[in-house]
């Protein structure tokens, strides 16, 4: 399946002011008496036309099987949404062995056959593999933990330019570090959770962000953390078909993470913030780190409105303060969590270091006992209904 990303102008919103045609450095935009249109062959996706457009009509990028010609576009009264490419119903090839092994290890707690949330969108997966990767370009790389702390976590933005890379919140991508190991073999693939919502790190851009922690001696993490703006990276994926965000606005989402396990939850939260601020479903976050300085995205997280997300931070190494872990914070919110767990609209997602799920599990069991619920019965039921997901590494 060869999906292309085509730049198109929304004829309903466009006011035919000619600004885009004037701005385009490669003359990809032209018009007739009715519409302004973009030539797929000429457009380089440079976005020069996007900023001066007064309407936002210019900022449309659709996945297509066959690009629309300019004659097609001249005849449009509106964008042909929903008929742009092959549906995701096509059988996808099985993931290559090394990726399925990694995914199986990460989701060992919930097992192999856990379904996605009922209201999750249909994901594309395995569009690109180690042998046929897609090339992305680094659009940015910044350290997001305090200088002088031991934990060096980076926010890396990859731009896919013309190549389609459709993904959903909760999915991951694969990166193979260049070069060979001590035995002269190609390196193993590394999986990184995507930290951006599906419409891109910047809305409407064909890009995504990763949250990557530098591990001493780690080939993959050092490669990613040292990437420079403009570097090319070969990417496989997207991967993951179950750990996906429920789309229903009434879905309550309990998110529990440590360190870079926050990546998918940043994507979930950002998706809600941009698209469904008035959703009735609650977002509740339990996030553990050693200190505020070592907690990725601490600043932006503090700025989110309380109406959007209920944030609970646990710090284990703040001088003169008792050690706190995510399970302690979970117990502190016993009443609220019990009310949520009693609802069939509630989903639990756990992401972070191996072993953290055990503490969470015990805390949930305690809360259920206190409130007349049975965790031993509830947990497998939530799992079967695609409402309980764990990804640890």
């Amino acid at each position, binding site marked *: 399946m060869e999906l292309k990303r085509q730049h198109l102008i929304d004829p309903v*919103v466009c006011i035919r*002011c000619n600004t885009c045609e004037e701005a385009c450095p490669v003359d990809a935009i032209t018009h007739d008496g009715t519409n302004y249109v973009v030539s797929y062959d000429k457009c380089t996706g440079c976005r020069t*036309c996007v900023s001066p457009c007064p309407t936002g009509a210019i900022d449309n990028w659709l996945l297509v099987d066959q690009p629309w010609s300019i004659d097609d576009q001249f005849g449009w009264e509106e964008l042909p949404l929903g008929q742009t490419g092959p549906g995701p119903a096509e059988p996808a090839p099985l993931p290559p062995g090394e990726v399925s092994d990694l995914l199986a290890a990460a989701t060992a707690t919930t097992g192999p056959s856990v379904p996605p949330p009922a209201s999750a969108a249909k994901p594309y997966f395995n569009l690109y593999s180690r042998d046929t990767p897609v090339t992305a370009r680094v659009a940015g790389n910044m350290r997001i933990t305090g200088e002088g702390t031991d934990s060096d976590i980076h926010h890396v933005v990859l731009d896919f330019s013309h190549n389609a890379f459709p993904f959903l919140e909760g999915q991951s991508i694969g990166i193979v570090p260049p070069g060979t190991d001590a035995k002269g073999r190609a390196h193993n693939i590394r999986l990184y959770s995507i930290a951006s919502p599906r419409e891109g790190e910047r809305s409407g851009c064909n890009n995504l962000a990763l949250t990557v922690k530098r591990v001493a001696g780690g080939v993959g993490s050092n490669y990613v953390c040292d990437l420079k703006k403009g570097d090319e990276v070969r990417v496989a994926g997207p991967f993951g078909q179950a750990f996906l965000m429920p789309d229903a606005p009434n879905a309550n989402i309990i998110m529990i993470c440590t360190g870079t396990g926050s990546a998918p939850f940043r994507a979930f939260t950002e998706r809600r913030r941009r698209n469904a601020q008035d959703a009735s479903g609650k977002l509740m976050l339990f996030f553990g780190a050693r200190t505020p300085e070592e907690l990725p995205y601490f600043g932006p997280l503090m700025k989110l409105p309380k109406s959007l997300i209920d944030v609970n931070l646990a710090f284990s190494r703040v001088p003169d303060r008792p050690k706190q872990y995510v399970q302690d914070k979970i117990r502190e919110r016993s009443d609220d969590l019990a009310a949520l767990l009693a609802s069939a609209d509630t989903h639990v997602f756990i992401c972070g270091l191996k072993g953290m799920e055990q503490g969470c599990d015990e805390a949930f069991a305690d809360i259920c006992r206190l409130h007349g619920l049975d965790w031993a019965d509830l947990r497998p039921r939530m799992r079967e209904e695609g409402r309980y997901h764990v990804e640890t590494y």
Partner: protein
Amino acid sequence: MSSINYAEKIPNNVNLSEDRKLQRALESWQPHYIDWWKEMGPEGTSTSEIYLRTAISAEPDGWAQFGHVKMEDYRWGIFLAPPEKDRKVNFGAHKGEDAWQEVPGEYRSMLRRLITVQGDTEPASVEQQRLLGKCCPSLYDLRNLFQVNVEEGRHLWAMVYLLHAHFGKDGREEAEEMLARRSGDADKPRILGAFNEKTADWLAFFMFTFITDRDGKYQLCALAESGFDPLSRSCRFMLTEEAHHMFVGESGVGRIIERACQVMKENRTEDVRKFGVIDLPTIQRYLNFHYSVTSDLYGAEVSTNAATSYNMGLKGRYEETKIGDDHQLEHTTYSVLHPVNGGFQAVEVPALNALNERLRLDWAEDVAKGVERWNKIIAKHGIDFKLTLPHLAFNRAIGHFSDIAVDPSGKVISTEEFARRRDEWLPSESDLAYVLSLMGGAVTQPGKFANWIAPPARGINNQPVDFDYVRFA
């Protein structure tokens, strides 16, 4: 990259700091401008934070950044489009010569007049719109109003810069005068008629930005062709901002139409006023008014002034360089409609003398396309009603149609009949009073809209529609 340093007192990309005399002159005009803005700019906004688009460079790819800006901290500056290498004068008697970086002495007064008239319209529209914030239909619309206002302010700066930089003492005096005139003032009115009309309600504001700012676009396009390069570059950058104003107008009226159609269908009635929305015939009358009053801005259909400024190479035609003729027009004619014996007749006149009418027709064609897009909204609802543009001779006060009375279809009638039937075609006192009655208190809850207007299809800069586009202190 001509990026802009906002640390300077007057942000600019014209190396202002290298011309101390000019810098001092503009810095002494600046406080007068700020005083004018405080007195005549949007009412009661000094402490609000508005989600504004600010130019950070004149290159398209670094064009703008969005962010909440306190109205009183907004920095007006001087931005010219990047220079075009080896640019020539592209029309008129000097065709083929290098474009001028300085004003040719013999054209000084003509050019000064062109720049002054253009410049005067900018603060005028701010004055006309200063009370609209008090009855805004949503935060989204309030933000758009303020964005339009600050950009009109910046366009005044663009013209004042040219006056200060190239016209010495005369230019400085003209710049002061710009701040002394007032829209609608009996003693010191603005120069052009349309800019002394009231903009009392949001339908009028949207019609104004859709129709009258579009005249602005066509005038700027004609001046962007100028052989006087600094004027051309100023206008080219202004055009990127002007497009947003027309978007505000077109989408604004479109959303009022959308709402009217919704209510018509829900209640199976054409009489939607009892549901507190604006009916389509009233929208038609507003359209007739704004279209005819704006037609007058082009001046007389046959004009030696227009011929002169073209010949001099100061003001060209719309998309001059894309037209395939000799760009001197000395031997061509152009057909112009004249009133003849109770009817109309096309008369061939020297093309040079018909440039005003030619520009007006370019504009009219553009307006007509926008009206067609509005009609699509009505058709989508399955409603049998079409908005139409009135005949070009309808309700004219300037040019050779100003002596005759014409109905919107173009039938010549007596002045008595026109007076008797005026309210069928133009907003009546009761129309204006009704629309004004809908302009209640400002709607300032994010995501909420007044009953008489539909929400927009999308927010600004990919923000959601219910984003807090304006934050009140």
